[in-house]
């Protein structure tokens, strides 16, 4: 067992890239962010408290880098549609299930803050508290961002149409109950 927490960095790379890609929606920008984050994490490792959540710490560095670049650029970098929606392979969807491409197209239309909150809580499984700390905001702010993000996606995907929800719901349940082992 090594006591250098930096040895752990490599384990977090896939999550760090996924988070970066969700936030920037652009593969090249995302990878630059990951690179900056690694360099910063490496040289500032003394500010990491061993035993705390390293992933959250890395995400914090990454998002701070992203938002400070965004501020410098003076606007949201929005070549959104491209890489995020197209670079990832499309899995065949069976009837009714939301097409992943539709979902991605809707997802990239959320604000940066909404995407970030939703990914941390909804996909990465952070507690509201961890997400709030990662983003440097109050827990209530994270909750409301997540709620707004879901509501906006619901609108964009027309889940307010009962038939759409019914269909996607059936397919989703099939995924949840069928494909996933009951590990939890």
């Amino acid at each position: 067992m090594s006591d250098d927490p930096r040895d752990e960095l490599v384990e977090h790379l896939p999550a760090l890239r996924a988070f970066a890609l969700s936030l920037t929606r652009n593969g090249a920008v995302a990878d630059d962010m990951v690179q900056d984050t690694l360099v910063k994490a490496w040289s500032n490792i003394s500010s990491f408290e061993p035993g705390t959540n390293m992933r959250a710490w890395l995400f914090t560095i990454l998002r701070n880098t992203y938002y400070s670049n965004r501020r410098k650029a003076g606007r949201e970098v929005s070549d959104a549609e491209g890489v995020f929606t197209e670079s990832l392979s499309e899995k065949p969807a069976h009837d009714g299930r939301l097409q992943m491409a539709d979902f991605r197209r809707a997802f990239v239309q959320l604000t940066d803050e909404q995407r970030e909150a939703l990914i941390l809580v909804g996909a990465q499984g952070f507690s509201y508290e961890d997400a709030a700390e990662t983003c440097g905001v109050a827990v209530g702010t994270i909750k409301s961002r997540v709620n707004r993000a879901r509501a906006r996606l619901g609108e964009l995907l027309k889940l307010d149409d009962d038939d759409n929800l019914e269909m996607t719901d059936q397919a989703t349940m099939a995924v949840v109950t069928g494909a996933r082992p009951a590990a939890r």
Partner: protein
Amino acid sequence: MGHTRRNDKEAEVIDENLRRVYQDMLDEKVPDRFLDLIAQLKSQDDDGSATGGDAK
């Protein structure tokens, strides 16, 4: 805030799709440039404390 079964269902559909999108991203192979970078940072540190090792 009208919290209904409907909203729960909608959130469930959204989160399920979200996790699939995220999982696709997690499954992507990490480019070598990051592993190289870590190796490079490590060897710089080693050079700082001791001399020798990898020339680069």
